[in-house]
């Protein structure tokens, strides 16, 4: 698919697991980002802080990090009157990443982060497929120009939006990875189950190098989703990027209650659930990544964990099931119209 074979394919072929990065928002807040401001503007206004963000992950042992470009699509940047800066902000996000990765002294993948547009796609909403593809393509070209190794779409809820991103990445001629957020009764907000996602990625004309889940609710729920992916015997490697616990508000900041020890347990369990790329999402800082790396390097594989073992190690699930079962509606239906 891509013009040239890339570093991530190479590492996936050679290694049993890869450590991805942690949170972007959490770490930038720690550097003084104000709530409501666009983190992507810092690529130009405070590049040293973005370098520090990337370096924090690399120094903690990440084999791969995501660029500070999650919200750098025309739809999201419009809020900050920066919709004309999509190309620039993405290119610089990747250039800064390239700089940090190339000075790491070991192979580190720069993954160009692409987040949701924030709009609802047709037929339920108003964003057309072609408009979404165009928006993602514009972002992809910026990340490509800045030297990203792969593109990485994340936190997606709607299958239509996932497909639009995939199509845009094909237009840019880039290899990619993709994750969705399973935050609603075991499914995505739009009702996609883990099994649905496996069918979705494997049915794409340009399937991703790896696929999986990010963010959502707690780390336990994320691992349950991984087990449900695994039950479909996917042919594509799995990604796990779970939150470091649950958000709490402490002294004017969001603090996640997951400790480095908990995230170390999570990382090992994610590997044992079959994930090949393992990282954190919201709340995951360099100290968590360091603990995760050490655990992955030192603790031997222990077979696929059961749901009970996951709960015992990481705490309870936030919903009853993985959302794959047929739930019983409140009320018996009468006749159904055609």
């Amino acid at each position: 698919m891509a013009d040239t074979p890339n570093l991530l394919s190479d590492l996936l072929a050679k290694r049993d697991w890869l450590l991805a990065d942690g949170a972007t928002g959490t770490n930038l807040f720690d550097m003084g980002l104000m709530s409501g401001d666009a983190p992507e503007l810092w690529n130009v206004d405070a590049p040293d802080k973005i370098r520090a963000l990337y370096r924090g992950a690399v120094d903690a042992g990440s084999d791969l990090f995501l660029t500070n470009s999650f919200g750098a699509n025309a739809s999201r940047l419009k809020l900050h009157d920066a919709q004309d800066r999509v190309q620039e902000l993405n290119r610089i996000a990747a250039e800064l990443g390239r700089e940090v990765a190339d000075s790491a002294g070991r192979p580190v993948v720069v993954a160009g982060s692409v987040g949701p547009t924030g709009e609802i796609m047709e037929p339920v909403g108003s964003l057309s497929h072609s408009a979404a593809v165009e928006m993602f393509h514009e972002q992809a070209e910026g990340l490509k120009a800045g030297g990203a190794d792969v593109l990485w779409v994340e936190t997606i809820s709607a299958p239509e939006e996932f497909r639009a991103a995939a199509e845009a990445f094909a237009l840019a001629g880039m290899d990619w990875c993709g994750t969705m957020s399973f935050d609603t009764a075991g499914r995505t907000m739009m009702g996609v189950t883990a099994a649905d996602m496996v069918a979705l990625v494997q049915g794409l004309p340009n399937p991703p190098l790896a696929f999986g889940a990010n963010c959502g609710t707690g780390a336990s729920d994320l691992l349950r989703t991984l087990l449900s992916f695994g039950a479909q015997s996917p042919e594509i490697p799995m990604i796990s990027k779970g939150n470091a616990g649950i958000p709490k508000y402490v002294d004017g900041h969001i603090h996640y209650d997951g400790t480095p020890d908990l995230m170390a347990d999570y990382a090992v369990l994610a590997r044992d659930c079959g994930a090949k790329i393992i990282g954190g999402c919201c709340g995951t800082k360099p100290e968590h990544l360091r603990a995760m790396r050490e655990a992955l390097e030192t603790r031997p594989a222990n077979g696929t964990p059961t749901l009970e073992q996951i709960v015992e190690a990481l705490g309870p699930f936030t919903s009853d099931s993985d959302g794959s079962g047929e739930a019983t509606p409140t009320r018996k239906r009468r006749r159904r119209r055609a």
Partner: protein
Amino acid sequence: MSDEEDDIILSELDDEELVQQMFDDLYDGLKEEIEEGVNILLERDWAPYRILTEALVGGMTIVGKDFRDGILFVPEVLLAANAMKGGMAILKPLLAETGAPRVGKMVIGTVKGDIHDIGKNLVSMMMEGAGFEVVDLGINNPVESYMEALEAEEPDILGMSALLTTTMPYMKVVIDTMVEQGKRDDYIVLVGGAPLNEEFGKAIGADAYCRDAAVAVETAKEFVSRKHNQLAG
């Protein structure tokens, strides 16, 4: 097999059957059928307020429960709410004319930096469905627009939504400003959004965190009736 099912003729159903059919049609997001059902009930001299509460709110309550229980997801609920909106558009002017009871009023908006309005729209629609008057400020609201709207609209409730961990702390900025201006206790403040939880709601000084649109409606009703009781006492 679908021939027979296509042949449901709303006007031939008796009142009870028709309301039951409207529950199903709301569930399936059939806007035109809901509009037709509302018009038929009006022709049968149902009071607008009765149509709202028994047919539309009744139907949306079922949708809300199945959404809460993970049986329906956002796409289905948006379609149902859209059908509800079709019925409401017919009833709204009539409700005003007939002086139907007002449940309460809410100002709602997504906070600064956040474009996400799916959850907020669901809450707006469900609140309207429950008889509340809703003033929707849209997305990306700085504290100033919330304060202006509170001043101008004099609602019972302020609702704030955020879908990003980078924007959720902004809710505290708004609440702190309300406190500074001595206005916090004049309003019920409800917050919601995927990354939030009850503890966060408490920590920033909101009255309640609402997990989803159905919970938002239940919570709003409870707080408004509590407020009324206090005033009466």
